[in-house]
């Protein structure tokens, strides 16, 4: 189990990506699954900076990777604004692209790419726990 704390800015996304890709490969995931993990983590961390911290350099992102028997468990923590994922509308995936509203694909990609993904909010701490099987 490895934990790394990254400064909450967009420049960190590439470093976070390298960290989780390495862990996912160590966990024995195939390249498609590794890409899925990279995408989910990137969307999650980008959301933390944009929505939880509402700006760059406001707080940190703590990222923990744990190789398990079945694959990898990734936990991402921040101490920005909590939110209610149940209140977020589902994205429009069927209208002609021209008519769709920009945004709203990040949480969908997280759900699609991971085998499990759930948020836990405790006072002062927001946690996203994600699991991807081999």
């Amino acid at each position, binding site marked *: 189990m490895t934990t790394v704390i990254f400064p909450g800015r*967009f*420049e960190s*996304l*590439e470093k976070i*990506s390298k960290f989780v890709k390495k862990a996912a490969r160590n966990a024995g995931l195939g*390249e*498609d699954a590794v*890409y899925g993990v*990279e*995408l989910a983590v*990137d*969307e999650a961390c*980008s959301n933390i*900076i*944009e929505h939880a911290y509402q700006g760059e350099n406001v707080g940190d992102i703590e990222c923990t990777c744990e190789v398990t028997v079945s694959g990898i468990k990734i936990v991402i923590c921040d101490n920005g604004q909590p939110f209610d994922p149940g209140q977020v509308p589902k*994205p429009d*995936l*069927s209208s002609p*692209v*021209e008519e*769709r509203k*920009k*945004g709203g*694909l*990040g949480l*969908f*990609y997280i759900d*699609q790419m991971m085998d499990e993904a759930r948020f836990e909010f405790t006072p002062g701490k927001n946690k996203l726990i994600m699991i991807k099987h081999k």
Partner: protein
Amino acid sequence: MEITTTQYNRCDVVKMTGRVDTYTAPKLQETMDAVVESGKNNIVFDMSEVDFLSSKGLWVLTETQKKCKKQRGKLVLVNTDEKIRKSFDLVGMGDYFDIFDDLTAAVGSF
């Protein structure tokens, strides 16, 4: 990350290397906007060295496609990684871009 633009007679080729994420997407958008503002509306996005594209990157492509189409042009993609293509399919955007395997074929399509 590097972005280069090459001008041809009927289209411009924009080539980017590395990741298109929230950090780099604005630079790509700037480049695309500069091409469209220069009056060109046919763009080839050479993705042969793009290894990651997040939803922010995808929106840059859809915004650019809209701007091109508004001026009767088109954005086409080249050598899009299979994993990135799957992420387009997942959100119902698999058909929104013509994707070529070969840069010459893409340029030659205009």
